[in-house]
């Protein structure tokens, strides 16, 4: 017997949690610490004509007011297209334009409410299908579609789908949609930054990827990596909402500007308004199926509502497209996956980087196929299941496959008696 394998060992942080001693970022505070509040855009889309922070700066208790001009390199993010603070214009309601540091949250909020910003409002775009049309107003100067190399979609091709559709007995066409979804993790975005005497900034971060954020922040501040010390790893729920830097850049800039420790804790309203979300999907399927239930061709147009900035959306679209055929062997595949910009809050990672909507649509589609050919849903999944030696749409030859074996166990656990011809199947060989 091993020491650990097969045994339940106590959680290393369990006693900390149950005694309330786990130190989350919001539990960190320093003497003379300043608190941050942000001025967020009340308009959805528009040009910023003027930002007047004079009254905010005069508010007693305010230590610093931060605008785009204070940011050494005001462009960051996984797609390197997002401003820390908006300067020329805004692309979604809630986009941060000014940050204020003051002696407490109430004073910072009071100062924020004295900020005046003039906008020239523009027509926003909300529907990704509309956004894809050439005459639709642009969300960003480069256009509303992300370029995957030379084409505006992730392209996956295997075999010949048109030939597959001709060979098919039944065509199953469906459109699936999912909506924007917030992670709703209990611990919201929060950051504490402190400038040390040697010039290092110590950041208590909720980041799910502190090293990547250290790199992004070094770029924003134009400082070497060894000036940034991230303290992380204790996260009160993330689920992908903390893969994007939401607060550490602002607290660091304000710590540099004031020399004092700075905390920014978002309200739940800000979380819903301006943090990243799982973007909505529109997934259009056309499957060619033989009478016996075998899928011989699949054509998909998948559209990701990316919101206002790139962030992790292109990667999310990639993963979605790579896995949207599910664990099924389909000889002819055509997938176009689009990443479309709209004037909504930024979409990014959530629980599987686009695979969850892929699995949802794909598995409902399998049931629709079963219905269309009059077969049992288990049968459809068994006969289309990937086996050893099968090639995926991305041309990966599979080995050590265990899908059929897993489905047999799942049926057993659910108390379902599968017919003998399914129980006789194996991942190691195909029926003739």
């Amino acid at each position, binding site marked *: 017997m091993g020491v650990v394998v097969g045994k*339940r060992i*106590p*959680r290393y*942080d*369990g*006693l*900390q*949690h*149950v*005694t*309330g*001693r*786990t*130190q*989350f970022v*919001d*539990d960190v*505070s320093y003497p003379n610490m300043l608190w941050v509040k942000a001025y967020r855009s009340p308009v959805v889309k528009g040009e910023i004509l003027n930002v007047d922070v004079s009254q905010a700066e005069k508010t007693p208790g305010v230590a610093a007011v931060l605008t785009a001009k204070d940011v050494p390199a005001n462009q960051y993010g996984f797609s390197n297209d997002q401003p820390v603070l908006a300067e020329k214009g805004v692309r979604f309601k809630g986009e941060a334009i000014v940050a204020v540091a003051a002696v407490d949250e109430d004073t910072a909020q009071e100062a924020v409410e004295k900020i005046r910003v003039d906008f020239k409002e523009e027509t926003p775009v909300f529907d990704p299908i509309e956004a894809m049309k050439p005459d639709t107003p642009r969300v960003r100067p480069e256009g509303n579609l992300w370029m995957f190399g030379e084409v505006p979609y992730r392209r996956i091709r295997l075999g010949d789908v048109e030939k597959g559709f001709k060979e098919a007995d039944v065509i199953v066409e469906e459109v699936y949609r999912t909506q924007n979804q917030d*992670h*709703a*993790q*209990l*611990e*919201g975005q929060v950051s504490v930054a402190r400038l040390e005497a040697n010039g290092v900034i110590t950041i208590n971060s909720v980041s799910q990827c502190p090293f990547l954020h250290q790199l992004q922040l070094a770029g924003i501040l134009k400082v070497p990596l060894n000036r940034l010390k991230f303290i992380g790893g204790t*996260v*009160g*729920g993330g*689920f992908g909402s903390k893969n994007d830097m939401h607060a550490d850049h602002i607290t660091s800039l304000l710590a540099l500007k004031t020399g004092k420790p700075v905390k920014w*804790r978002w*309200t*739940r309203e800000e979380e819903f308004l301006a943090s990243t979300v799982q973007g909505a999907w529109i997934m259009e399927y056309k499957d060619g199926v033989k009478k016996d239930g075998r899928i011989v061709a699949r054509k998909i147009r998948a559209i990701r509502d990316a919101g206002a900035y790139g962030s992790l959306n292109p990667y999310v679209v990639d993963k979605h497209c790579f896995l949207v055929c599910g664990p099924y062997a389909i000889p002819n595949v055509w997938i176009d996956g689009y990443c479309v910009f709209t004037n909504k809050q930024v979409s990014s990672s959530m629980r599987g980087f686009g695979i969850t909507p892929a699995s949802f649509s794909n598995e409902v589609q399998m049931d629709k196929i079963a219905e269309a050919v009059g077969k049992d849903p288990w049968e459809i999944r068994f006969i289309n299941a990937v086996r050893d030696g099968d090639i995926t749409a991305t041309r990966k030859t599979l080995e050590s496959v265990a899908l059929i074996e897993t489905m047999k166990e799942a049926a057993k656990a659910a108390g379902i008696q599968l017919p003998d011809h399914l129980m006789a199947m194996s991942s190691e060989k195909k029926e003739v």
Partner: protein
Amino acid sequence: MEYALSFSLNGKPVQVAVKANSSLLDVLRNQLFVTSPKKSCDTGDCGACAVLIDGEAVNSCITLALTVEGKKVTTVEGLGEGNQIHPLQQAFHEHYAAQCGFCTPGVILVAKALLDKNPKPTREEVTQAISGNLCRCTGYVKIIDAIMAVAEANK
């Protein structure tokens, strides 16, 4: 304008000057540095800020601090005896009822309020009692298992 507030916190008397509009949660966290009650929704919906006031579980984010004058406030920092943690804390640890740990202090206090009144609740009564506490990591099965383990020990 600040007002003098006196109450018992985890068995010890405290005095603190608070604003009229300060929540109990803000006073506990920002003025008394008792950080186990968490600020999460700040609108009384998630239960992460729950504390006991005279034995009743209350969301401290929507409780004005001045209303606890002369009352007994308990947080998980005040549970257990000396170095011995409370049976509920032990059960939460043993049943893996805490994942990220953010909702945990609030749930333990709500469970304590229940068991103090009703030492032998049914599973349904436990489920009902923690219905005001959101957990986004685990689902609720292990949390209920942990509370039921203490309830069973009372039977």
